[in-house]
């Protein structure tokens, strides 16, 4: 008799299991909309972008294979979260000695230059991707995006959305440290 009554507990148990699963997902702080990159641990795509400033060198695949880890940051002057994360990029470049390449996404040259003049330039070089075609090869779908590339040109980390201090402390700086040694 007891055994047959236990059956009535099944819905409750199912509910608790589901509720627990949802709670873990909700409390994990992960962005449920973030799409895992298909390019992690794969070589960065082949590309060759002109520079943002006339007469300055552009940004191409070869720049990523110079031996040390580098960051690639996709930004645009029209992108508000790019402004929010900019101080962190400045800090990375100036205090942590990181090499950051900028990929200026679907922007106007004049606007992008204004953005850099106003906020400072953390980028070693800036490639101008007016059509957004190179960005598609990188799998970009939400600006800003930030990648860490190891010395051999492989993508090791991707962050979609504005960088926050905890991404720097917990992910990017340890990874850079790791890749440098």
């Amino acid at each position, binding site marked *: 008799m007891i055994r*047959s009554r236990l059956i009535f507990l099944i819905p409750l148990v199912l509910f608790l299991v589901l509720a627990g699963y949802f709670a873990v997902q909700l409390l994990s702080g992960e962005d449920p*909309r973030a*799409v*895992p*990159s*298909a*390019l992690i641990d794969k070589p960065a*795509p082949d590309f060759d972008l002109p520079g943002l400033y006339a007469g300055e060198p552009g940004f191409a695949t070869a720049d990523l294979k110079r031996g040390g880890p580098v960051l690639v940051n996709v930004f645009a002057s029209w992108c508000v979260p790019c402004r929010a994360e900019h101080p962190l990029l400045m800090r990375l470049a100036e205090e942590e000695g990181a090499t950051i390449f900028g990929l200026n996404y*679907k922007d106007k040259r004049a606007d992008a230059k204004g953005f850099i003049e106003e906020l400072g330039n953390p980028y070693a070089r800036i490639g101008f991707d007016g*059509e*957004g*075609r190179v960005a*598609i*090869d*990188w*799998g970009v*779908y*939400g600006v800003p995006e930030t990648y860490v590339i190891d010395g051999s040109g492989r993508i090791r980390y991707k962050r979609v959305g504005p960088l926050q201090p905890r991404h720097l402390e917990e992910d990017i700086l340890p990874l850079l440290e790791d890749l440098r040694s």
Partner: protein
Amino acid sequence: MIRSLLLALAVVVAALPALAVQPDEMLDDPALERRAREISQDVRCLVCQNQSIDESNADLARDLRVLVRERVKQGDTNQEVRDYLVARYGDYVLLKPPFGLSTLLLWASPALLLLVGALAVFLWFRGRGRASATQAGGAEAALSAEERRRLDRLLAGEDGPEDDGSGRDPGDRRA
């Protein structure tokens, strides 16, 4: 009155969903355009996520639609276009996930649920059948003295066919 209601109904039924594809994106060749539409209906817009790029007005969706049309025009097959996108955005870009090891559970879950359901129904009916048999006559108590003696003999291992000979299975072992 009825006529105007019918007219209203006709208007509602005839209304087509607003499409995101702009005339300037379309290919001149209707066959290629049809293929491009077919592909884009199965490609997820990564900005809005639950729309296909065919339905989405997002900038990136437009870029991807144009890209799909370019690839189709260059002679890519539908599968090649999809592979091109998957290489950049992962399986997630396809609205219909491919069948593979990582998606095995996803694809098998309807069949699994059906099995669980069937098992539950089977157990339910078996339990009911048993319960009603018990109610009908208190099976154990209803054994007659003759039946009980025979049962005792069977349990003791000496099954003599000559003892009763009635209604026995032909497969039974004869002594």
